[in-house]
């Protein structure tokens, strides 16, 4: 080796082939079929059955069989197709398992709610009657003598829709306008940083705190112990606004800057650019963000219990006294059955109320998709 630091002449700097350079070893990849992994999967299934038959805990057996499957696949592909393919198959297995793990509880939950709540939900009494005047005697008759179910959740469905609707009316304008301020007017300012921080903090507020806040606010404004639908709507808004702001901010941010510039360059004032170009372009995202926010709060129990109270009968006036909502209704039916000795009818009502909530959320999500599709920027010829 020479200590000469003069630049190497060009002919000595010619590129060497990768195979000529020491210390580089490329991994081998040979052709392979998927049949091996299917075979391993079949083997693992047989092993699973065997282990269960031998008396091992099924969950433990499943984990064991899965680990064995991963090991077999790794060894098999390592020897036939090379280590890279083997790692690929192992990770495919892990990713697939994670997917199953995520979906199984969801399907199980849906199945439980539908099977437990379905029969009562389709009972005409459930959606047409309130709990006004219903006592343990009727439940006794239903469970013991097979009399038709008396007492339903009509008032709770109405209450849920009214309170969540008001909450949405309060929080959607506030949330969307805040997002517009954050994205369009002060993307980097000090005020925006403070707002973003507060919104982040608000996202983490426990729902009971929101309920107590509304309760306390109403105590100050209208006297201690005032409970009504508006208080509940305010509590839900506290929970909702942060979600709406966050979602809307993201949606407005992904509107391409070129569109704003195009509009401004046509001599359109800024507020009109926002109203006529930015918002319509982001509309589909905004709609789904709002729906998600509604879906998040529609099942809240604790804040409504504190701020709205519990009503046995129908109350459609959110400014007058307690109302009922589906989540609170389900909670009461589970914890305080009308007749402690004959719990079945109350539990059925609770399950049906839970199913009703799930259905409302599903309908909300579907309608968000329809709205999103209707607003989505058009492509194609």
């Amino acid at each position, binding site marked *: 080796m020479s200590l000469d630091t003069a630049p190497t002449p060009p002919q000595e700097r010619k590129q060497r082939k990768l195979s000529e350079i020491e210390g580089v070893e490329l991994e081998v990849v040979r052709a392979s079929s998927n049949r091996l992994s299917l075979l391993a999967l079949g083997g693992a299934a047989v092993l699973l059955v065997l282990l269960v038959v031998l008396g091992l805990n099924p969950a433990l057996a499943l984990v064991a069989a899965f680990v064995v499957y991963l090991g077999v696949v790794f060894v098999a592909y390592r020897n036939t197709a090379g280590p890279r393919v083997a790692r690929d198959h192992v990770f495919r297995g892990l990713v697939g398992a994670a997917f199953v793990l995520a979906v199984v509880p969801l399907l199980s939950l849906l199945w439980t709610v539908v099977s437990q709540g379905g029969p009562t939900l389709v009972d005409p009494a459930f959606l047409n009657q309130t709990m006004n005047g219903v006592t343990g005697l009727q439940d006794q008759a239903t469970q013991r003598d097979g009399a038709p179910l008396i007492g339903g959740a009509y008032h709770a469905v109405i209450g849920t829709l009214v309170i969540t609707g008001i909450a949405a009316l309060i929080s959607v304008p506030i949330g969307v306008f805040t997002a517009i301020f954050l994205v369009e007017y002060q*993307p*980097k300012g000090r005020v925006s940083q403070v707002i973003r921080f507060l919104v982040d903090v608000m996202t983490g507020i426990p729902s009971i705190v929101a309920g107590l806040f509304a309760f306390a606010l109403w105590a100050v404004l209208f006297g201690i112990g005032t409970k009504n639908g508006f208080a509940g709507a305010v509590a839900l808004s506290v929970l909702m606004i942060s979600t709406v702001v966050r979602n809307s901010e993201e949606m407005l941010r992904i509107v*391409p800057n*070129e*569109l*704003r*510039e*195009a*509009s*401004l*360059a*046509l*001599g*359109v*004032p800024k507020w*009109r*650019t926002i109203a*006529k*170009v930015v918002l*319509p*372009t982001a*509309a589909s995202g905004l709609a789904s963000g709002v729906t998600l926010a509604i879906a998040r709060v529609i099942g809240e129990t604790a804040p409504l219990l504190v701020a709205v109270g519990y009503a046995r009968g129908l109350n459609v006036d959110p400014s007058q006294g307690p109302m009922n909502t589906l989540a609170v209704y389900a909670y009461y039916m589970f914890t305080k059955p009308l007749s402690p000795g004959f719990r079945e009818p109350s539990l059925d009502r609770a399950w049906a109320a839970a199913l009703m909530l799930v259905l409302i959320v599903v309908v909300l999500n579907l309608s968000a998709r329809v709205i999103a599709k209707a*607003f989505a*920027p*058009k*492509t*194609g*010829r």
Partner: protein
Amino acid sequence: MSKRIDVKNLDIYYGAFHAVKNVSMTIEPRSVTAFIGPSGCGKSTVLRTLNRMHEVIPGAYTTGEVLMDDKNLYAKDTDPVDVRRQVGMVFQRPNPFPTMSIRENVLAGVTLNSKRLSKSAADELAEQSLRGANLWTEVKDRLDRPGSGLSGGQQQRLCIARAIAVQPEVILMDEPCSALDPISTLAIEDLINELKSDYTVVIVTHNMQQAARVSDRTGFFNLEATGMPGELVEMDDTQKIFSNPSKPATEDYISGRFG
């Protein structure tokens, strides 16, 4: 409806960064003026100051004067929105509004700015603007389809139609052909030639042949080093710039001897 622009001692800043220094030039009405120069030399920035679009970037400001027929665009009582109504702009990437149809796109500048627009007036304006942008025959049967369904070159001509629909005095084009294929580029260049009979056109381009083909006058921008402000080296008739420039830097650049 085309006006002359005089730029006097214009300095442009982005916050603390001095982007362009001491530009003075005259842009003649009913002519095409091209800005050429290496990347980052400030030619797009200068273009954007001509309709106050650079103000959209937070922290940007200017000193000096831009006079349009002796009216200072940067006077205290001049509203940037009003300036942009008189000085239209076409961008590098075609940017039709995705939520609007072809027809709505063309009329966007008018509908977003006026209280009322009758159907017949809208029809007339749409046809006239699309004809002006040489796009009418290609889209007249699908005016209600989304603008994003057109090809890139058609989209760019749609954007030009949208710009001329508000009937500005001046049209600025910021590398309008850099995202287009040669055929579409040719269509746009033909269009620029036609536009200059009615409008003052200013175009920024990286393509020197294009500058030579379409422009009457050419300004060469350069910067001494990265981080230094860009400046206008010289501005003259296009023919003179490309055959016999007075500054050596210009000659180096157009003959390709420059990095």
